[in-house]
């Protein structure tokens, strides 16, 4: 194995190590990436669950307070409008029932007051269309004198529920009669519309009395529309929680609790609606929210898995392409190195003047042939020995340039005739040709043609080359044996050519 081969092998081993390291490293990185993504998504789900519980209570309290405030604002607006209405009536100087009804109609329209009415000292109620005795209809009239604002709830026959707001009328007189109070009736269904949620399905609200009666006619999770909340929750929550709920409702306390009903996690939050005796309750189904979040998490996890798979596939594909590319580059590099090696070897074995192979190449060739001779594989091989006549004379008389040219001419002549042979320049004026196959079979004709041209060259004063040849005999142990015979023949020819007029060393 040559040094070049050793280097190539070392490089290949080094490259394999690099690729292996890269593949293992990439796989490790991808595994860590995948595991960390899965861990992160699981962590996110559990963290979200905790956050939902915390946030839902906070969210519910805010919702309950906000809706209670909406009702308070509505009540305050109505009280404000009722005071304005009293001022208007005071200024009107009403003298008949008809005038009063007209004025009440105007006020109702202008101030957007629902069922605005006056009550006189005999508890006769005056509205836009009717006048009626109302003591049995309104609890606030039982108290006699009215000294302050009154907020009460009317449970009308026919299951309609209304909010009744009344204020004292001061010293107002209408048609000569002292007016005790004015009041409005607001349908609680209208208030309910104001409080509607957008989050259908997960969040509920209900308006209740302190005794738990449902005013809003809305579902509150497991508590049906119209059902008393204390009745509706009795079977579903532990006694301690139910007692707290009852007490909080009776005393108008804020509160919240989480219930588990039929496997459904529900958080309820309640707050008093100021001055009404009402409780605003808001309920959220955490289970449903959890399910939604879990569904989102599952989707995210699926997306992560797809992402990891795609990334892994891309990495593998990229690695394969990289490997192929690397192998191609290595192959090209190896080929280039081989080519360079061949070039260097060729340069080492080539005669720079003539372009044929040099003595070093002949030596390698001779070693290889000797090996073949020893193994009995060599047959049909011939050696031709060539020597340029008069080279020294030309060098001496015409200079080395002319001598060099003579060598080139000789080389050309030899190559032209022995086109099927391996031509070597083995000395200053000596060449050797090794013939195989076709070169061997046409040896005699080639030899004769060469000699004919040489003899003609004598006359033309062109290059003259003496040649002798010998075929490899079975008893030859090495090529040199055939070479010596050919060399002897060449000397004989040299003498012969001298007689023909060729210039020789001794001339």
């Amino acid at each position, binding site marked *: 194995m040559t040094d070049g081969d050793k280097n190539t092998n070392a490089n290949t081993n080094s490259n394999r190590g690099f690729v292996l390291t890269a593949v293992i490293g990439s796989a490790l990185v991808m595994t860590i990436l995948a595991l960390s993504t899965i861990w992160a998504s699981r962590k996110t789900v559990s963290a979200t669950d905790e956050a939902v519980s915390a946030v839902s209570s906070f969210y519910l309290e805010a919702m309950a307070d906000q809706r209670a405030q909406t009702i308070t604002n509505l009540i305050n607006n109505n009280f404000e409008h009722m005071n304005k209405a009293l001022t208007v009536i005071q200024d009107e100087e009403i003298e008949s029932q008809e005038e009063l*009804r007209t004025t009440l109609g105007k006020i109702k329209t202008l101030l957007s007051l629902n069922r605005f009415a006056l009550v006189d000292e005999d*508890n*006769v109620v005056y509205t836009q*269309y*009717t*006048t*009626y*005795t109302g*003591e*049995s*209809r309104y609890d606030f009239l039982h108290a006699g004198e009215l000294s302050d604002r009154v907020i009460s709830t009317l*449970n*009308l*026959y*026919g*299951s*309609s*529920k209304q909010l009744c707001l009344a204020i004292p009328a001061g010293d107002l007189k209408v048609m000569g009669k002292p007016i005790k109070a004015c009041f409005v009736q607001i349908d609680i269904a209208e208030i309910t519309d104001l409080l509607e949620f957008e989050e259908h399905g997960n969040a509920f609200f209900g308006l209740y009395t302190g005794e738990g*009666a*449902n005013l809003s*006619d809305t579902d509150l999770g497991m508590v*049906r529309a*119209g*059902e*008393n909340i204390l*009745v509706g929750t009795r079977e579903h929550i532990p006694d301690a929680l139910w007692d707290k709920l009852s007490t909080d409702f009776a005393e108008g306390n804020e509160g919240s609790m989480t219930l588990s009903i039929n496997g459904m996690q529900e958080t309820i939050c309640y707050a008093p609606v100021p001055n009404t005796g009402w409780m605003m309750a808001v309920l959220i189904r955490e289970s449903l929210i959890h399910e939604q979040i879990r569904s989102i998490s599952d989707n995210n996890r699926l997306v992560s898995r797809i992402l990891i798979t795609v990334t892994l596939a891309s990495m593998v594909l990229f690695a394969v392409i990289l490997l192929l590319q690397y192998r191609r580059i290595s192959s090209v590099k190896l080929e280039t190195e081989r080519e360079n090696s061949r070039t260097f070897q060729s340069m080492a074995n080539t005669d720079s003047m003539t372009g044929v192979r040099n003595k070093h190449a002949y030596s390698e060739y001779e070693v290889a042939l000797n090996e073949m001779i020893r193994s009995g594989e060599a047959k049909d091989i011939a050696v031709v020995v060539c020597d340029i006549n008069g080279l020294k004379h030309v060098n001496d008389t015409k200079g080395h340039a002319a001598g060099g040219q003579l060598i080139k001419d000789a080389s050309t002549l030899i190559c032209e005739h022995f086109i099927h042979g391996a031509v070597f320049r083995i000395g200053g004026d000596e060449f050797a040709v090794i013939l195989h196959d076709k070169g061997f079979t046409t040896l005699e004709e080639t030899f004769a043609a060469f000699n004919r041209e040489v003899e003609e060259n004598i006359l033309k004063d062109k290059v003259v080359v003496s040649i002798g040849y010998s075929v490899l005999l079975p008893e030859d142990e090495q090529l040199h044996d055939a070479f010596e015979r050919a060399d002897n023949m060449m000397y004989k020819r040299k003498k012969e050519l001298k007689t023909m007029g060729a210039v020789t060393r001794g001339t």
Partner: protein
Amino acid sequence: MKRTGKMNHRKSTLISLVLPVTLVFLMSVMGCSSQEEVQTVVSEVEENAAEVDDQVSSAVDFDHELDSYVPLKDHYNFYFTYKIVHPWWDAVALGMEEAQRQFLEKGITVTYEYMAPDEASAEDQIERLEQAESGDYDVIGVDVADEDIISPVLNEMIDEGYKVMTFSSSDGSAGCTRIAYVGNTHNYRDGSDLTEALCSKLDYKGKVAILVGSQGAPCHEDRARGARDIIGKYPDMEIVAVEYDNDSVEKAYNLTLDILKDYPDLDGIICCNMSNPVGAARAITETGSKTVIVGMDHDREALRFLDQGVIYCLGVQDCFSIGFDTLQVAVKIADGNKPGDLFPEKTDEITTIIYQEDAAQMLELLYGDIL
């Protein structure tokens, strides 16, 4: 449940629920030939149960629409006076307000006064009618406080050209020339039916008391008369007391306590108005007496006593329909129409007798209470 006037006597939802099971069992034992026959009988019984539920829900009809009559004017003004300021008439008022709202939607304005004294009084009613005569009213409506005193007054008003109608619980006496009556036309029968239910419950023997509302009020007196007549049919039953509470729950309560003191072995109380059963039930609950109460009307507290089993049965009148129909008939009368094709001389409204098992549904129907 029993419906007077329009409905036959019907018993409890409980029975209607138990009956299918019993029937299936009996038919199975008797070797009923096929599954289909059993199924058919069960279906029929279930239909009957559903019918009973429908009857409870239709005891009061809140779903009214004005008929096709086109009023001649775009504004009407009425005066109505009734016996006493009381929640029963507030329920009637809501029916009137619904009719007024529907007229308004058609562009017809109806204004009216709906007035009563704090205590039932024929004299007070006469004063109100005299005031109404001086007002500019298209029709004057009266819930007769005392038929003997008020009927002649109404006749005079008719003679003078006033358009007078009677409404709600009490009509004028025979010979009263008022134009029409809208309301309960079967007070005597209501009293009879309630008493019959009580007698049946007591196995037709025992001592009973009768609580009445206002003396002379036709509806109360008629019911009391019906009660007396039924008790008179059964020799083992005895009326030991008849008292008037003047439509006061407090008075009914005290009267019941007094009666129980005098007759601790009292077996039943027949209540002829809305305040009677509430006061009686309070007293019975307080004393722990086993006295059976039957009574009238839809008071929320009375319905809760019914649900608890303190009251045995209640006769519920359709007050909302009474109010709605009263205003609709008043408009027709104001236009000069007489009873006939447009409206009857007496518009009969139903009374439905309900029992413990019907109480929850009635409370939900009337007050939105879900127990």
